[in-house]
């Protein structure tokens, strides 16, 4: 056991830092915490990384991965957090990509992996339905064979950023007569421009348009777009959920968030003193940092285990629960720190709604309340924190 970085790892940190300094798109600098980014903005860094060959570090090298070890990946996320970079979205890179290279056909790998690596194709995740949230296996959307097509009917919901998506991966019921709900589900890749797909916005409490309903009416999809075997989709979906969870701790981002919080607290004043010198407040920040350290070392232990060939197990539920609690607490303290200036709502401000220049209060205060509201989602999605605790109950405590 030791915590030192090897000379190679230190060299890697320098290389990563220099690359980011030199290549991170100028127009994105300082926009990491902002909502309302355009599709182009969200893809800009992804595209740069795609050209460099660094967009999918965790993939096997044969599919375009970098072969970095866990420490290097950790360094990479830290270096990106330093500049609040807008990282490649998870739906292609961390979700459907691994499913395709693990379970897909050669044709699927050739067709889809390059677009995911380069950032040319945008993916969305069509799992949840109005009646199937935590109980995902109760999903009702059907895909019925008609010659060499499936005909899909049903409704998905909460589909993140589907308004920008070129492709979606959908869980559909292909055998309604299966004995168990988990059986009879297939994993199907759908071109979002196919006739019969309608994407309707859902506005969230922070006022953003991040999620959607996706309505599917007689959507015809070639059978070759099914990944793996018919009726075995649940296996692939579960594989994917485990991948989704392991990235969710967000340690490097939260570290950076604490740094930003301290800067805000150093600027805000209470009775003429910086808020940061207020014992009550600064202890709350310390507590958060201590919790984050515990999470960080739990993640490092998990990563070390993975490096020795242990797959992401039920322990990754710890990362999800603790990681999201910390992210939420961070936004809570940020909102506290800004005092009265958490109130003004920049999205509702008529003249300047579309520009960076919301003229009320300090810049760091603008997104504090919407950010806090928005982050409530993290304990709901990706398997809610109650569901994660149920997983630990069953799989680890054996109850």
């Amino acid at each position, binding site marked *: 056991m030791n915590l030192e970085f090897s000379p190679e790892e230190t060299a890697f940190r320098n290389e990563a830092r220099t690359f980011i300094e030199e290549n991170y798109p100028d127009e994105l600098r300082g926009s990491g915490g902002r909502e309302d980014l355009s599709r182009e903005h969200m893809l800009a860094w992804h595209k740069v990384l795609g050209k460099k060959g660094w967009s999918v570090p965790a993939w096997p090298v044969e599919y375009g991965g970098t072969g970095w070890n866990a420490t290097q990946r950790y360094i990479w996320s830290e270096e990106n957090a330093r500049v609040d970079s807008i990282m490649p979205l998870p739906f292609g890179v961390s979700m459907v990509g691994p499913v395709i290279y693990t379970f897909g056909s050669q044709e699927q790998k050739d067709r889809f992996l390059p677009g995911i690596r380069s950032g040319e194709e945008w993916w969305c995740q069509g799992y949840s339905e109005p009646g199937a949230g935590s109980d995902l296996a109760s999903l009702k959307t059907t895909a019925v064979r008609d010659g060499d097509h499936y005909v899909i009917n049903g409704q998905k919901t909460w589909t993140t950023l589907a308004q920008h998506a070129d492709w979606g991966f959908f869980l559909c019921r292909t055998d309604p007569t299966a004995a168990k709900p988990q059986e009879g589900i297939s994993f199907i890749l759908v071109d979002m421009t196919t006739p019969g797909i309608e994407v309707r916005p859902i506005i969230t409490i922070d006022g953003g348009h991040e999620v959607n309903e996706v309505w599917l009416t007689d959507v015809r999809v070639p059978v070759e777009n099914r990944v793996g075997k018919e009726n075995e989709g649940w296996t692939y979906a579960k594989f994917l959920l485990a991948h989704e969870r392991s990235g969710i701790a967000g340690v490097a981002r939260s570290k950076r968030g604490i740094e930003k919080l301290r800067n805000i607290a150093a600027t805000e004043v209470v009775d003429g003193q910086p808020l940061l010198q207020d014992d009550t407040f600064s202890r709350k920040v310390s507590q958060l940092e201590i919790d984050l350290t515990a999470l960080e070392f739990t993640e490092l232990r998990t990563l070390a285990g993975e490096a020795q060939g242990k797959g992401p197990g039920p322990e990754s539920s710890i990362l999800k629960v603790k990681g999201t609690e910390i992210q939420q607490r961070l936004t809570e303290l940020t*909102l506290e720190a800004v005092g009265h200036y958490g109130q003004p709502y920049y999205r509702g401000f008529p003249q300047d709604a579309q520009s960076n220049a919301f003229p009320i209060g300090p810049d760091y205060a603008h997104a504090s*309340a919407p950010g806090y509201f928005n982050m409530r989602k993290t304990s709901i999605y990706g398997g809610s924190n109650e569901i994660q605790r149920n997983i630990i109950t069953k799989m680890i405590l054996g109850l």
Partner: protein
Amino acid sequence: MDFNFTEEQTMIRDSLSRLIREKYDFDTRRGVVQSEAGWSPEFWAQLAELGLLMAPFSEEDGGLGGGAIDAMVVMEEFGKGLVVEPYIPTIVCAGGFLKHAGSAAQKEEYLASIMGGETVFAFAYAEPRGRYNLADLETTAKANGAGYTLSGHKAVVIGAPWASKLIVTARTSGDRRDRGGISLFIVDKDAPGVTTRDYPTVDGRRASEVYFENVALGADALIGDADGALPLIERVADEATAALCAEAVGAMGVAHAQTVEYSRQRKQFGTAIGKFQVLQHRMVDMFMEHEQSISMTYMATLKLGDDTVERQKAVSAAKVRIGQAGRFVGQSAIQIHGGMGMTEELAVGHYFKRLTMIDSELGNVDHHMRRYTELGVAPLQAAAE
């Protein structure tokens, strides 16, 4: 001891809750909030018609003879209906200043039109660098002949876009943060030298940044004592804080009730999610937080007339407890609603937002915890000296 409401108070509650049910349901409120004006002058007029704006004023002042408990009853109903109209700024704050310290001429000029719903006030106390300290003022009013010249910037003045009059705290002497040297003024919003930037707030209300540039005020603009207004300001801020606690209680009650109801309807894994014990206990905790908040609001409201230290301790204790309870109830309501709780479409998210922002008004949990602690420690320190 008596925790019963009077007949008049029960009537106020009943008529207001009926009015809100009939004229201010959630969809109507959404329309009001999104309208250009951002509030409903018609609804305000209806409140006046029902006599609700007169309720907390004495009969000598032309009111119905009620007081803080009546305001509490009104604000709890406002909380239940997420009503945005400016009862606290106009009735509790401006009304409070006038009834405690207004001159006969000022009462004559304003009280009847406040109670009649014609004149709307906003209370401009916060400043960009003052946080929750009511004495931390950079806005100044310099003596100028018989009157004053007012200059400065007030931050996040709730309801200012709807108001024609502002009540403004300003330093007339002494150093920033001195307890002495503070005065209180009534200022016409359209007086020369007053400019505003109006904007919506995250919880569906409207506010302004208000800038004063050498605004000329007559001697009759002063409320109460020159240089000695802080105790008055603190008193009225405490009354407003108690009313805000009542609003939070109303909002918490609805957020809890909607959550319990949702947990009955929503099925996952073949059963209502309300059957999962972990959610049941969380909803029980929400219930207990709500009940404790009711108790604290009664306690603080009943002690508003006590001596200063007792009053301040009571109000700070209530605001601390309600800030904490509001956060827990709001967050739990969203969590138990799952994805639905995150949507703008459902009311529950709006209760969550309002509960969140109530903590940041008139002093948050940390601010009131500090005040409470200092009030408890001060006599011990005095004894030790």
